[in-house]
């Protein structure tokens, strides 16, 4: 008998049978999520190796790095990096990390796998778009990587690609011709992929929730992905046309970004009348939201992981959600803080400084909720919760420097120094990566049906935690000492005393990077030989732990969608199965109210 109080199953598609449809051109959000994860994993190791090369060069300027000339014979004649090649590697490092790691892993990878399950859906509403989203992103990655192999190598303009030097062609240096064209094409393609992904995330959250899953019953991780997808939709929709205009300046001779009478290398540039600031406006209108695109999923993941391990809900579920939403809204109003010293009208600096200081309020609230909720909780210590704590630590340490940078008068001094580099590596890069690690240790059992090795996980945590501070804390000091960023060697007399510091950083970077192979080993080993995972190893409440099998079946819930009865985090109560009640469990909750 069909019963309307239980959810009827709406069959979108039958499970595929061929290998290609199952594992390669799959429209299953779980496979797509894993594909994104794999892409991010490849990208993060490429990015890490690039950072090693840069660090080696910064510590020992004329060091020959064996084999480097294989990568580029002109960029590294005799295995020694040229100054230009340093900048080219740096640009690729930043670009690959920001776009193909920090955007793909916490958002696209985990979001694809878990958002539909956490809302109780059997798939995303537009699975073909979803598949395209991954494949388009992969193409973008390949286009980006291909720029290593064109004649003068990848672009050296930095991940921000400031005009006019990004728009005039190879006269501006190696990689500024074909390299920039490939860079901008790759990013434009990437934008399409993320727009398709955001479209699916938004509609899944709004329309595919199962019966009883009101918005307030969504887990915090879902909120993180949902808010991020709204930011992604608006931010990538702006970056894409910006990249297209940049490409046109290259290939079609237009002058969007190049001003008149620009002389480079004694050559008067043929362009006229463009606005160099225009690029910065368009880029940072995307760029500032992008940094929140990188971190908000991590915030959601960490909140989710911590709640499970604290065995009690956050102090205020709603305030946490509202604060993440406020970050998203405010992130569009602050982008000018990247342009305080760009020659923009100083009044604008003041105008942008104000919301920048305001945006610290929701960030602070989020942090205070985390800390307040942790205070006095008996947190279960495991790899996932350790990395969640680490993420909070990094976010605070990196956030504090934001207060300084937010003030134009201080930023005049600190802009384009290692202080900024330290700021964003801690608050964005490392914090987001810790979020990814936390999510990996937490969800691996559900994704692959096997447990990860906890002992290795903890070793990985401590090495990475200490290592990250050893690398990025000294950056602040170097920046205060006047160490400019995007320099390939420190030859000026006031910079020379900092060289020992840079050598220390390099050693720390190599060691911390090496520690990541423990993670890689753990990942691969556990994937095939790990202990078999139970359906709900962490005694958690949300729907991803309510699937009939682990990993979940093709349609997630085996033909019958769950019905949701509770707020997401019913912990620390008397349930029939322990100190928690799952969202889809119809049992009544005694002492604790429905409110999370």
């Amino acid at each position, binding site marked *: 008998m069909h019963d309307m109080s239980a959810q009827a199953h709406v069959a979108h598609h039958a499970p595929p049978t061929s290998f290609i449809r199952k594992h390669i051109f799959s429209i299953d959000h779980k496979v797509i999520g894993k594909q994104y994860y794999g892409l991010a994993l490849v990208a993060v190791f490429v990015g890490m190796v690039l950072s090693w090369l840069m660090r080696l060069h910064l510590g020992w300027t004329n060091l020959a790095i064996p084999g480097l000339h294989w990568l580029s014979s002109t960029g590294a004649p005799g295995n020694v990096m040229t100054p230009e090649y340093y900048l080219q590697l740096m640009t690729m490092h930043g670009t690959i990390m920001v776009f193909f790691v920090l955007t793909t892993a916490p958002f696209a990878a985990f979001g694809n796998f878990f958002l539909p399950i956490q809302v109780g859906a059997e798939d995303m509403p537009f699975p073909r778009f979803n598949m395209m989203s991954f494949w388009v992103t992969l193409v973008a990655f390949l286009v980006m990587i291909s720029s290593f192999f064109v004649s003068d190598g990848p672009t050296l303009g930095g991940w921000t690609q400031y005009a006019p030097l990004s728009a005039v062609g190879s006269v501006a240096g190696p990689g500024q011709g074909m390299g920039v064209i490939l860079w901008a094409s790759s990013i434009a393609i990437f934008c399409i992929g993320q727009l398709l992904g955001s479209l699916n995330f938004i509609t899944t959250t709004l329309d595919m929730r199962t019966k009883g899953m009101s918005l307030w019953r969504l887990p915090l991780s879902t909120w993180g992905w949902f808010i991020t997808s709204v930011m992604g939709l608006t931010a990538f929709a702006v970056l894409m046309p910006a990249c297209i205009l940049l490409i046109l300046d290259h290939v079609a001779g237009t002058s969007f970004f190049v001003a008149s009478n620009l002389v480079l290398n004694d050559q008067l540039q043929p362009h006229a*009348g463009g606005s160099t600031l225009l690029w910065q406006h*368009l880029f940072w209108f995307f760029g500032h939201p992008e940094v929140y695109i990188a971190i908000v999923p991590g915030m959601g993941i960490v909140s989710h992981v911590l709640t499970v391990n604290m065995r009690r809900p956050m102090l205020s579920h709603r305030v946490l959600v509202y604060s993440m939403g406020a970050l998203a809204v405010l992130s569009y109003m602050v982008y000018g803080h990247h342009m305080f010293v760009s020659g923009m009208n100083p009044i604008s600096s003041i105008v942008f400084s104000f919301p920048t200081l305001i945006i610290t309020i929701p960030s602070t609230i989020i942090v205070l909720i985390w800390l307040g909720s942790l205070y006095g909780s008996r947190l279960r210590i495991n790899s996932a919760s350790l990395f969640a704590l680490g993420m909070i630590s990094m976010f605070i340490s990196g956030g504090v420097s934001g207060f300084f940078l937010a003030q134009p008068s201080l930023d005049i001094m600190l802009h384009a120094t290692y202080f900024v580099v330290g700021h964003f590596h801690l608050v964005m890069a490392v914090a987001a990566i810790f979020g990814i690690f936390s999510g990996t240790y937490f969800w691996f059992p559900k994704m692959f049906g096997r447990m990860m090795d906890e002992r290795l996980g903890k070793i990985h945590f401590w090495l990475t935690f200490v290592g990250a501070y050893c690398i990025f804390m000294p950056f602040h000091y170097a920046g205060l000492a006047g160490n400019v960023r995007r320099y390939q060697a420190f030859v000026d007399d006031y910079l020379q005393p900092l060289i020992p510091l840079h050598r220390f950083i390099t050693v720390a970077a190599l060691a911390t990077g090496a520690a990541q192979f423990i993670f890689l080993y753990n990942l691969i080993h556990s994937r095939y030989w790990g202990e078999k995972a139970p359906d709900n190893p962490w005694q958690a409440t949300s729907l991803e732990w309510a699937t009939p099998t682990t990993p979940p079946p093709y349609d997630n819930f085996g033909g019958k969608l769950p019905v949701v009865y509770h707020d997401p985090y019913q912990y620390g109560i008397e349930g029939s199965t322990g100190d928690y009640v799952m969202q889809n469990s119809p049992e009544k909750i005694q002492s604790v109210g429905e409110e999370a």
Partner: protein
Amino acid sequence: MATTVHEPPRIEQQPQPRGVLDSGGGRGNQIPPQGSTRAVQYAPPPASTGIWVGIAAIAMTFAALTSALIVRRGGAADWRHFTIPSILYFNTILLIASSVTLEISRRRVADFMSNAQPKLTNPVRWLHLTLGLGFLFVIGQYIAWRQLSAQGVYLASNPNSSFFYVLTAAHALHVLGGLGGLIRVIRKFGNFSLRRSTLDATSRYWHFMDVLWIYLLLLMWAKL
């Protein structure tokens, strides 16, 4: 389809919704009535949300291009006056007409699906007409570009022409996407698999192309 569905033990009442954020699951409340043979209204609804989301993204893209135009114009000594080719006004009429024909056919299908009209008075003819008008619009745009290049006005000739080509080409690409959508609708209609939400979403997109075009025309007319 699930064949057996066990009823979960029902112990508590669902709490009353207390606002938008509290109302029940999106799709949970929209299960089609049992035994209904007619096309299900708005199932699945994601198509209609999705199209709004897509429209938002496209609007954002054109907003970015608009602000680029305004910033670029602000500081430019090389801004030349630019008369937009008059065929564009004719194209505009074509596009508006296509929206009208699409709306006619959409209403007919809607009436039929909601039983207001017992017989379906050939909506496909109107769909074909829409398609034809849409293609004519794109061809018209192409003619405009040809006319301009015949006068020696190319993409890179001056900032005005750059923006003209970029804006019109970006819009034409989106119209081509819409034409693809229309062809899909016609095909689905042909083999009786058309959902009303698909038709609604496609026509909403198409009307948006219309509105967007009128906006662009005004923008180019006033600022180029």
